[in-house]
Structure formats: C-alpha cells, structure tokens
C-alpha cells in the first residue's frame, strides 16, 4: 500500500469514471423548434420553467413575491414595511436600523438573512449583515421582491438562516420610456422625487434611474423607555434635555440617494451599476444629545454602497448555456454612539483607549466576485442539472474617505500582548470560494427528487457544507406537495473570523436544520391556497472573549428547536383581489450552552442577576400573526387598497415580565408600579396595523395619483431585546408609530 500504488489507483478510477460518462455527451442532432411543424411542436415534452428557475409551484421553498403593482398601491415607508405587510411570519423591530425577522429568526444584526439585488449578495460581511436598501423610502425602481421564508444557504450562500430577500430592479423591458414621480409623506415630512428612462433597441436595452429623498422624520414621537436602575418608566418628554429624535428621519439632513443603471447588449451581456445610501438615527436610542453645540441623535448609523456587475449568459447550443459574471461591490458603514461613556480598559469595558470613544464602527469593505453557473438546457422528465463556482476577494479597511478603520472596537488583546485594533488599523483581506450543484430526478410526476449541495470556504473559516434534499409531488394539474430537508449555515462576520484567527482558532458556523412540508393548490382558476409546516433545530453561535485568559473564540450559545405553521389563501376576480395569511411560530425548546447564562433568543433557560428561566418562547417574536390585503378596482380607473396586520402573543416579552415578577413581586413597589404601567399600555398584547390607499389612473396623461394612510389605528413598534440583565427591564421599549398620510404622483411618457 505505497503512495505510488495509490496514485495509480486514483488514475485508474478517474479514467473509468470519465469513460463511463463520456458517451452521455454524444447526443443526436435533432430539429430546432423553428424547423418543427405545429404537430411536432405539440409532441415536444416541455419542462415548465427553466432549469435554473423552476416555476413557483415546483421550487422546494416557501416563496412570497411582492410585485411593482403591489408596491405602487401599498402604503409602505420602506422594504421592511412591505415585507411585514405581505410575507407570512415576517416582522421588523427597532435597533440601529430595522431588524427584519422571518419565521421567528431575528437578531440585533441582520446577518441571519440575505439581502440580494438582482441575485447579487449585498450583505455587509464585516459586521452587520443586511444594511443597504432596507431603510430606503424610495421603492419606485423595484420590479418585484422575492422573499424566501426559511433557510436557503444551499442556493444563495452562507447567511441565509432566516430567509432571503431578493430585490429585482426594473429594466428597459419592464419600464420603457420616461417616468417621473414625486411623493410626500406629510406626517414624516418625507419628500422624494425620482426619474427613470428605459430604452429598448434591436441590439441593446438601457435603463437609468435616479431618486432623491429627504426625510425630517416624525417629530415628538412617543417613545416608551424604562430606566434600568430605578424602574421609572414612561414616554420621553420632548421638552427635556435636547429632546427626542425624529422618527425615521435622515441623520443630520443627509438625504437618501439612489442611482441605478442597467444595460443589456446583444441579448447576452448585462452591465448594471447601483448606488444607494441611508443615514438614520438608531431607532432604539430615542433621545437627542448636544455635541459640539449641535443636536444629534445619541446613536446613529449610516451605510452607502456601490455595486457594478457584468454578466454574460451564453448559449453554446440548445442544450448547454453558461452564465458568468464579475462584480465589484463596496460598502461603507459607520456606527457612532455619541454619549457612549469612556470606560478605562482596565475595568474590562468596551471602549478602546486607542481611538475616539464614540465610534462603534467605521469601516468599508470591498468584494471582487467571479462566478460561473452552467445550465443544462436539455432535460427530460427525469434529469435536470446545474453546477457552479465562485471566488470572492474580500478587502476590509477604513470607511470611504477615512484613514483609519474602526471595526474590532471591543478592545481585545491577543496572546502576544498586542491590541487587535492596532493590528487592523489599515485593514485586512480575506477570500471566499464556493462550489454548488443541483440535480433533479423526475422519476414520475408524483415523485421528483431534488438534490442540492454547496460548499463554502473563507480564508479564516472551515469548510461549510449546505445540502438539501427535496421531494416534489404533483397530484393532478393543480396540487403540489413538497417535502424538504436542508442544512443551512451562517458564516461568522469577517470581524469575528479575523479576531478568532488571532486567537489561533477557526470558527465553526451557525447551523440550522429544517424539515419542511409544503402544499400549493390552485383550487379553482381564481383561488389559490398555500400551506407549510416546518420543524427547525440548530446550534446558535456567538463570539465570547475572556480577558482573564486572553482568549476569544466562537462558541455555541445554545440549542434551539422551533416549529412554524403558515397558511395563505388568495382569491382573485377581475376587479377584486383578497389575500389572507396566518403564521404560528412556537419554540419547542431552548437550552443554553455550557458557560452561557443569558442571551437574547429565549428566557426558557436563563440565570443572571436574580432573573431566572421563564416560559418556553422565542424572545422578540409574536407567536401569531395574521395579515390581510385587498385591492378593489372601482369605476373611473380608481383602485382601493387596504391591508391589515395583527400581531398577538408576544410571549417572549411576556416571559421577561414574568421573570421580573418572580424576582420582585410583592416586595418592590417600583416593580409593581412598572408592571401595572406595562399592563395599562397593553404591552406585548395584540397590535393591529391598518393601511389604506386610493389610486386614480388618468389615461389621457398616463399618470397615477395616489393618496394613502399608514398605521391608521396607531401601533407599537418594539425594539429588539438582546436579553434582560439589569435591575429593571430596560429592553422592553417601543415607539408608538403615528398614523401618517401622504401622496404619490407619477407620470409616464
């Protein structure tokens, strides 16, 4: 058994393998579609949908699509609002920016979901996950948004634990000619204008879009906050101190700008370029502060991003095509906590004596991505195939126009005595390589088996493997049953991976396994029903640093099991559409990992500062949510839209109350007063949101005028809670979102 014999063995095996598959490539030349007669066309067996994008009923995921027509009539301030209105089991909470949760999975950073634009991953990998696009008021350049509920890293890459949001932008084909529009939300003092041009020629199509949006924000919003030390709670007084921050306003008057350019050439090449930005106060720090004589929010963040993508989709013949792409993506992010106290390093605090005390983050990241996906167009009922690979060069450095990088602001020493912040002041690099493939075995309409696999590897991580097995069964023309098992992974942030590298560790990923059963049915030509049940379990991770031993590593923080049930019905007539969906999410169990006593996911296993385990629920989640939307076509080209969302059973927040109740009940008047206040405020009870719009299309001038009302009943917007640990529940806070009205006008030429 020597190495030479082993080498010979490998060569023998490879030759056998290659010769066994070679003949499969030798396919007979057959007629093209253009050469066929009508009778021959009717004899052709077709695959509904393409190999790499199956029809909705056949892909083994729970998918929600929000179209441009939905966006035009729906009163929504941003993408987070849209998702909350239409997607079963989705909501968002306040934090430094909107934090979107899907099917119970939500964090203080949006790194458990993937944000894509035209299929391109736009997540900030350094620290925060999905930051771009989410808070932008302007939605007029969006053709549709596709949201996959639940894990999906096998198809889209590491990070897709909660779900995937894919924004598909308009193009010259969908938006021909010139369009312009203005909008004004009177209550938030948010004004915007956009303009776009779409040109289609024989050999090329062009689309250009630009928008500018200024938002002062809703002044004197009702922010409810609790003092962690005294338990004194109430709505902040805008006349106190520097006041309270305007809700959803631009930070320091910086407008939101969006620029997009998209060109298609020779039906094969596509170049698109995009820039977006948004700067907003941190939504969970409600006050303003005086800094250098100016009123600023006590905490604010900003992100801006530029991406350019060049793609080629080449068909070698009618059987094989290759989609290749190269892209450059750069994002700059800052996070400033103006009133952050300076804590000397020796006391084990967070602040670094090496840099300004109020910078939490200030860095940029750039990625050059090369990718390739081969599609086999030739398929039969039995086999479909796709295979691809990608390579990304990742660079992390100072923010755009800055000369120092602030990322690893948790001031850690590494074993040799140096500070990590000093090591990365000028930045660092990494790379990521990925392989993916998919195979569909169509044995019978009742039994289609889909096998998918993906491997990812970062310079500072181990190999991550994400497999999926799907069984799709079509019963008759209108019923589809789908059963899937998949393992999704989340690679740690670049910040955490790099830290761990200097502690001589290599990170394990966060893993979520999911079993899901889905049913889609077109009961009649007008009536659609979708249902899904999923069971999910996984090991959640976090970075833990011990200053005593100067050791930092990614460690499990706990084991989570939960299930979801979703039902969705849609009924559509020519002039009337109504959709209703309901989601139920319930934790089965949560168990802290060894050495963990508190976290933000569940109070089911908890022990800190006299606060002990309570309940068995997901924190930061409404176990039940029901959503309804309707569109009614009225005479005179009028369209009435209404949508409503009901969230109830915020049991996780209720568990926090019960924890404090158990600690203080009947022996702390401050807690009793606070508890009564929370009950009086209907805290963690039922929230109802209602939006309405009325649009009129004016054919003579090809214009649409729309008037809308948002949150007509008023509603609470809670802040994300990372777990209680103080004397009083300081994380139970919210803002009463006001009813708001606005108007939109757009014109097409």
């Amino acid at each position: 058994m020597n190495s030479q014999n082993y080498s010979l063995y490998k060569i023998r095996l490879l030759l056998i393998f290659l010769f066994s598959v070679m003949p499969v490539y030798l396919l007979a030349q057959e007629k093209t579609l253009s050469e066929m007669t009508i009778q021959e066309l009717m004899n052709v067996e077709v695959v509904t949908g393409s190999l790499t994008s199956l029809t909705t009923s056949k892909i083994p995921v729970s998918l929600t699509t929000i179209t441009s027509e939905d966006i035009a009539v729906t009163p929504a301030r941003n993408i987070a609002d849209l998702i909350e209105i239409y997607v079963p089991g989705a909501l968002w909470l306040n934090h430094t920016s909107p934090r979107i949760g899907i099917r119970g999975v939500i964090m203080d950073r949006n790194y458990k979901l993937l944000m894509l634009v035209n299929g391109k991953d736009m997540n900030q990998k350094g620290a925060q996950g999905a930051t771009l696009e989410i808070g932008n008021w302007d939605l007029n350049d969006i053709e549709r948004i596709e949201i996959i509920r639940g894990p999906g890293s096998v198809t889209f890459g590491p990070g897709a634990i909660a779900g995937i949001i894919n924004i598909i932008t308009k193009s010259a084909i969908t938006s021909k000619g010139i369009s312009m529009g203005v909008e004004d939300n009177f209550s938030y003092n948010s004004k915007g204008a956009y303009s776009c041009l779409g040109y289609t020629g024989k050999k090329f199509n062009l689309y250009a879009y630009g928008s500018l949006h200024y938002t002062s924000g809703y002044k004197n919003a009702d922010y409810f906050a609790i003092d962690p030390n005294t338990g004194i709670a109430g709505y902040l007084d805008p006349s106190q101190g520097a006041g309270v921050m305007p809700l959803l306003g631009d930070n320091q008057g910086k407008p939101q700008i969006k620029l997009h350019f998209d060109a298609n050439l020779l039906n094969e090449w596509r170049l698109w370029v995009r820039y977006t930005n948004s700067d907003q106060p941190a939504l969970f720090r409600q006050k303003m502060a005086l800094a250098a004589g100016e009123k600023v929010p006590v905490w604010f963040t900003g992100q801006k991003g530029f991406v350019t993508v060049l793609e080629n989709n080449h068909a070698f013949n009618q059987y094989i095509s290759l989609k290749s792409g190269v892209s450059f993506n750069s994002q700059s992010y800052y996070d400033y906590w103006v009133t952050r106290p300076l804590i000397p390093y020796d006391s084990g605090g967070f602040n670094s004596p090496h840099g300004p005390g109020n910078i939490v983050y200030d860095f940029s990241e750039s990625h050059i991505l090369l990718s390739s996906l081969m599609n086999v167009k030739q398929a039969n009922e039995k086999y479909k195939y796709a295979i691809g690979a990608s390579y990304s060069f990742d660079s992390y450095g100072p923010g755009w126009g800055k000369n120092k990088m602030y990322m690893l602001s948790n001031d850690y020493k590494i074993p040799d005595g140096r500070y990590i912040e000093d090591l990365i002041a000028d930045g660092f690099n990494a790379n990521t390589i990925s392989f993916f493939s998919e195979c569909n075995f169509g044995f019978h309409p009742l039994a289609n088996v889909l096998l998918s696999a993906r491997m990812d590897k970062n310079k500072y991580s181990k190999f991550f493997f994400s497999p999926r097995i799907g069984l799709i069964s079509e019963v008759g023309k209108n019923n589809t049953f789908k059963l899937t098992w998949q393992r999704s992974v989340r690679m740690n942030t670049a910040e955490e991976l790099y830290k761990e590298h200097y502690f001589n560790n290599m990170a394990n990923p966060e893993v979520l396994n999911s079993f899901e059963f889905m049913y889609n049915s077109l009961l009649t030509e007008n009536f659609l029903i979708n249902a899904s049940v999923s069971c999910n379990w996984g090991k959640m991770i976090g970075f833990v640093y011990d200053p005593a031993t100067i050791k930092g590593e990614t460690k499990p923080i706990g084991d989570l099991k939960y299930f979801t049930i979703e039902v969705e019905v849609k009924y559509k007539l020519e002039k009337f559409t109504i959709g209703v969906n309901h989601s139920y999410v319930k934790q089965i169990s949560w168990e802290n990992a060894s050495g963990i006593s508190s976290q933000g996911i569940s109070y089911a296993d908890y022990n800190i500062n006299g606060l002990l385990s309570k309940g068995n629920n997901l924190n930061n989640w409404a176990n039940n949510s029901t959503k309804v939307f309707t569109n009614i076509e009225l005479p005179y080209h009028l369209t009435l839209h209404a949508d409503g969302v009901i969230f109830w059973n915020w049991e996780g927040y209720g568990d926090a109350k019960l924890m404090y109740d158990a600690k203080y009940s009947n022996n702390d008047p401050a807690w009793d007063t606070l508890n009564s206040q929370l009950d009086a405020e209907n805290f963690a009870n039922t929230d109802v949101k209602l939006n309405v719009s009325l649009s009129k299309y004016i054919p003579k001038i090809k214009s649409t005028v729309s008037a809308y009302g948002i949150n007509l009943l008023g509603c609470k917007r809670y802040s994300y809670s990372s777990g209680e640990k103080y004397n009083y529940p300081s994380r139970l806070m919210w803002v009463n979102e006001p009813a708001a009205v606005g108007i939109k006008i757009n014109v097409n030429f």
Partner: protein
Amino acid sequence: MVYNDDTYYFLKLITNRRVKILFVLLMPLCLFAQAQKFSEYEVKAAFLEKFTRFVEWPAEAHMEDVNKPFVIGIMGENPFNSILEKMYANQKIKNKKVEIRYISVLEDVKNCNLLFITQSKNNRVDQIQYYLKNLPILTVCDDIRYSKKGVQIMLFVESNHVYFEIDQNAVKLSGLYMNSLLLKMSKTINTKEEKQ
C-alpha cells in the same frame, strides 16, 4: 479488519476532502439526458410564428409592405426572458423582420400584429379588449381567464405538452382569416354559442 489494496485505497479516497469537493462538482455529470426537451416558453414562443402561417391579415394591416416589421407585442410581465429576441433575431414572419415590443401602455397595442397577453395579475382584460375591438391583431394568451374573454388563441400545458384552443368568434370579430387546418389541430371554444 484487513482490507485488500483496492478497498484500502477506495476508503482513503472517499474520505479525502478534495474528493468530496470533486464529488459535489461531478455527481450530476452522470445524469445527462439523451432526449431533446425544451422549456415551456421556448415552445410557446415557437408556436407564435407557426400560427401566423395559418392566418391572413386584412388589407389595412399592410402585410405586403416588407419594409415594416412584423410586431409581436408582449402585454404584462414577461415570461419569455430573452427567448423571443433570440428565436426571432434572424427569422421572418410574413417575409418581414420581427420586432418584439413590451407593451406597458394600452394604446400601444394598436401597433402590434400579434399580441401575447401574459399571466400578469394586473392585466385588465376588459381594458385590453376595449382597445383590441375590431382591430386586425392576432391575440394569444396562456391564461385560462382570458380565453373566455375574447382572446383568440389560448396556449395551455397538459401532460408536459403544449396545446392550443381557438375562440372562433373572437377571430371573426378581429377581421382576421384563420385557415381551417389550424382550427382542426386545436380544441375549439365558441363563446357566443355557450351564452345562448
């Protein structure tokens, strides 16, 4: 347990990380199909040209003017991607070059010779029918709702094959002449008779 050389090498090979990666890449290569198959919308795109061979336009459509293109309009969300452009880049219809237009404004349908109405949920059939009334435009759809609303040809998929139905009354109202051979190959709907 004692293995022979081949077994030992095989076990060593399949536990190797590089081999696992190669397996992910090569696994589907075993499964290439031999039969010729196409996507649903490729076949539907091909049907459009076939239909025109059995249809005659009236004089006011100026089909004899080969300098003007034969215009295929797509109304609603485009399910073809770039299939139509590729298929008709070099293919003529009625001896005319083919131009594909994506209709976003209803008035533009009047400039089409053939109009494909897609399954977009926001296509308002009543408005489309209003503009198409008495116009010599061949209308095709693949949404069952429209086939009962006066669209002339409906494409549908059954048992993984594409077929079509023809609404003869809708054809008559348009002023187009349709060869009986095409009618024989189709499943026929007669909306006027159903109402009576």
